[in-house]
């Protein structure tokens, strides 16, 4: 039963892959196979192109020949229009992979009289399908029939019949239609084609155009429901592959050095995690680009590939400027390890930036991507859009295990931390650069605001750009707060002098102590000799007294003998005492 259910599911969900970058991912494998799909959108949003790419990819990648029925453009026009995308229709037509069928109707030369059917169209499509064994059909834009043919009632019935007929034939069909006022299409084509409806949109926001694609419905299949940005460029149509993104990427324990030894130390001795997202933010001229360049340069030394997006400086200017602080990027660029991509953020819309970035990343396959700076994208109040874009990019990079390095310019009147707070959740390691103004000079301080997954230093370091690259120094932290630059130097000299004084003081104290000890010891000697003198005197007296006592006792004995007293065995004293009592 399970098997059967699975089987029916497979049958109902059979899909015709489009091979269009990203579209297969959001549709879960392609368009419904053997059914019609409606693509609607305003003028110039890429309907024809999407349909054509579907056919061409089908013919070249999946060996599914296709018929393109055009109601607007002639065969020649179509061929030359898509030649710019690298599609050689002439060749495909010759190889019987594609058949172009231009349906020409000119209202001015047509009169109508009574009921009709579209059997002629059916026959033509049928013939075209049969001639190349087509599996895919595009009708572009069949709605124009409404303008050319009389009696909409008959036309509607015929179109309904046509779609049924195509469905029965089992060909995967794309029907394009113009976007209507308040409806998906002008002529309500969605009534007839209801298996899959894709809406293309082309809007202009703050003078930059954004193309978006949305799957309005997809019968019998799950699909991404968001609006996805898409791009049309020399490689055709590409939708941003967002559905494949998520939080399920595996993380790396590998660490990569920052190119600044002291910074490595601050990041628990090893540097950034591979595949993590690093943000350096700071006010103007705090050295964000320098940190990025140093990182890029060290990556070049390790033989890693770096894709450097610069949005404010031209590559040559950047290379020149970095050379002045001893960071030479040129060799790596020449070796092909480092590739610059310079574009003004305002040049395209966010999506275009994103899609071009992703394309470049896919083709260059870098280990590290630098975006310098990300602020340029912020035009007006589009923070949330920028965040979404960066989120997509970050997810994409994480999936590819590419280390992302962003710089962000914070404006002075904003609080340093809060100005970037909207992207802070995306960031794994956040370095903050700040100006420290003391004693009439401006110095740079660097600290690690956060760094996920490592015990990082909480110390502020002085950040110096020397002729030999970046150097981090301990800042002076004393009772007067943090001191840097000359203030630190002068404080350090002051400290040194104080130290010397203290040393002297200690020496003096030690000397004094020694002297005291010596005096004490001398006193002890004197006292001891005095004592010894006294003691010998006392012993002498004691000896005399003893002798005197003995003599007295002997005298007593002698006396008692002479008095012929009992001399008992007992002590003389006792006997004597008894006698006395």
């Amino acid at each position, binding site marked *: 039963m399970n098997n059967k259910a699975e089987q029916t599911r497979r049958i109902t969900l059979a899909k015709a892959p489009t091979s269009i970058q990203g579209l297969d991912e959001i549709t879960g494998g392609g368009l419904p196979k053997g059914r019609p799909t409606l693509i609607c959108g305003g003028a110039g949003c890429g309907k024809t192109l999407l349909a054509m790419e579907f056919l061409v990819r089908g013919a070249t990648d999946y060996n599914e020949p296709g018929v393109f029925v055009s109601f607007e453009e002639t065969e020649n026009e179509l061929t030359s229009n898509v030649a710019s995308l690298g599609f050689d229709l002439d060749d495909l037509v010759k190889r019987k992979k594609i058949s172009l069928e231009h349906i020409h*109707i000119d209202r001015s030369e047509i009169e109508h009289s*009574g009921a*009709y*059917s579209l059997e*002629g*169209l059916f*026959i033509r499509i049928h*013939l075209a399908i049969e001639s190349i064994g087509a599996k895919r059909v595009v009708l572009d834009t069949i709605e124009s029939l409404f303008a050319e043919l009389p009696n909409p009632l008959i036309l509607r019935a015929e179109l309904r019949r046509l779609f049924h007929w195509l469905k029965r034939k089992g060909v995967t069909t794309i029907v394009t239609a113009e976007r209507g006022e308040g409806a998906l299409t002008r002529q309500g084509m969605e009534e007839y084609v209801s298996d899959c409806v894709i809406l293309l949109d082309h809007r202009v926001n703050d003078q930059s155009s954004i193309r978006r694609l949305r799957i309005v419905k997809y019968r019998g299949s799950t699909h991404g429901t968001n609006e996805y940005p898409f791009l049309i460029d020399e490689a055709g149509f590409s939708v941003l592959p967002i559905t494949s993104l998520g939080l399920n990427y595996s993380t790396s324990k590998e660490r990569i050095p920052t190119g600044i030894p002291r910074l490595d130390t601050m990041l628990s001795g090893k540097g950034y995690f591979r595949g993590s997202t690093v943000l350096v933010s700071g006010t103007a001229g705090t050295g964000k680009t320098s940190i990025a360049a140093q990182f890029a340069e060290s990556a070049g030394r390790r033989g890693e590939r770096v894709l450097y997006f610069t949005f404010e400086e031209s590559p040559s200017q950047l290379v020149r400027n970095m050379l002045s602080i001893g960071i030479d990027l040129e060799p790596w660029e020449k070796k092909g390890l480092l590739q610059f991509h310079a574009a003004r953020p305002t040049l395209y819309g966010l999506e275009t930036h994103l899609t071009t970035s992703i394309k470049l990343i896919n083709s260059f396959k870098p280990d590290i991507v630098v975006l310098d700076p990300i602020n340029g994208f912020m035009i007006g109040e589009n923070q949330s859009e920028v965040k979404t874009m960066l989120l997509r990019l970050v997810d994409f990079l994480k999936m590819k295990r590419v280390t992302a390095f962003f710089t962000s310019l914070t404006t002075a009147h904003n609080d340093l931390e809060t100005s970037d707070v909207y992207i802070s959740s995306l960031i794994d390691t956040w370095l903050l650069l700040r100006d420290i103004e003391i004693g009439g000079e401006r110095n740079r301080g660097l600290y690690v605001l956060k760094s996920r997954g490592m015990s990082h230093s909480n110390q502020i370091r002085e950040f110096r750009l020397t002729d030999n690259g970046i150097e981090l120094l301990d800042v002076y932290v004393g009772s007067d707060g943090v001191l840097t630059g000359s203030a630190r130097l002068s404080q350090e000299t002051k400290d040194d002098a104080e130290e010397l004084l203290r040393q002297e003081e200690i020496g003096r104290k030690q000397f004094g102590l020694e002297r005291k000890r010596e005096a004490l010891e001398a006193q002890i000697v004197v006292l001891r000799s005095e004592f010894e003198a006294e003691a010998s005197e006392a012993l002498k007296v004691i000896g005399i007294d003893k002798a005197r006592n003995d003599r007295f006792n002997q005298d007593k004995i002698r006396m008692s003998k002479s008095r012929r007293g009992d001399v008992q065995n007992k002590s003389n004293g006792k006997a004597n005492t008894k006698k006395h009592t």
Partner: protein
Amino acid sequence: MRRERPAKPHGEKWVLRLYVAGQTPETDTAVTNLKLICEEQLNGNYHLKVIDLTVHPHLARVDQILAIPTLVRKSPAPMRKIIGDLSDTTRVLAGLNLTDQGAVTDKAGCGY
């Protein structure tokens, strides 16, 4: 004079083609209607060919046929097309450019 106007193309034969697809009621209606009009308006000075696209499908492409039935006036130039079962004679005449001839219009108006 009025009678001669329809034969205006100086003896040039009208070449008409009627594209149909198989034997359907509409086809029959169209053929009947057309023959009637032609006999009346062109005094037999025409050549009508009924083309069945189910038999010659490639002709649908050659002559840009979409709707069935379609009547094509190949000659005299310019080419004209009339789609439908030709049940509305006024429109057929307009389509064949026979209406600018007052008599025809009148006649058609009276006749139907």
